[in-house]
């Protein structure tokens, strides 16, 4: 299939316009296959990318660029019971998931 999503990369441009992710601890809820995650994670201190879809997470882990392996932690998590300590993140991103 020839599908292209957001070929102009408007989404990441707006994300950077709205928030400075530099050296921040970021939680992304609804990361899916990591399409958005990879575009911003390099500048963060640490990115935790969560989704309930194990198949999407499998793809995300397989396709994760090697230079981002230490930056991104993909995890299967239910957003109603986030398995993280209090005040662990500086920024939370609800990515097409509310």
């Amino acid at each position, binding site marked *: *299939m*020839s*599908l*292209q*999503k*957001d*070929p*102009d990369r*408007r*989404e990441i441009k*707006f*994300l950077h316009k*709205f*928030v400075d992710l530099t050296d921040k*601890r970021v*939680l992304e*809820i609804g990361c899916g296959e990591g399409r958005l995650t990879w575009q911003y994670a390099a500048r963060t201190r640490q990115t935790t990318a969560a989704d309930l879809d194990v198949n999407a997470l499998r793809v995300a882990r397989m396709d994760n660029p090697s230079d981002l392996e230490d930056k991104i932690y993909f995890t299967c998590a239910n*957003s*109603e*019971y*986030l398995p*993280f*300590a*209090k*005040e*662990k*993140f*500086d*920024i*939370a*991103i*609800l*990515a*097409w*998931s*509310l």
Partner: protein
Amino acid sequence: MVHVLSEIRRVLAPDGILIDLRPLADNWRVEVVSLREVKRTGRVEDLPEQINGDVASNETMLDVEKRGWFKREQEELFPFFYSWDTPSEMEEFVDDDWKDFVGLAEDTRQATRSAWAVADADGRVRVRVEVMIARWRKAITNLENVE
């Protein structure tokens, strides 16, 4: 949904930021596009699940704002394009992946096929999805101020 926001609030540091990024129901535009021109061929039809989902999400954010959990700082809309080489690929995607959210009327399918057939060699088909991005800041509640 409120519980999700409660959890996000719990794991966010004081003064932390929440970004709410999501598509909004808007009978998204279908277009045939080439370097030379953009031709509108119709719109998808929003289904009740898509509309009700937006209403529920918006009500949730209003609710958490009233509770004093988050404070809205900025909001904007922008177009997010899904693009395919051919009309049939677009139709297959809409019928399979978006079947619960939007529909595609026969006249829009026909108009898109006709426009693509006579478009330039670089012609593609795309759907213009309306996406909202909003920045919310974690608020300190009165109770926390007392503490």
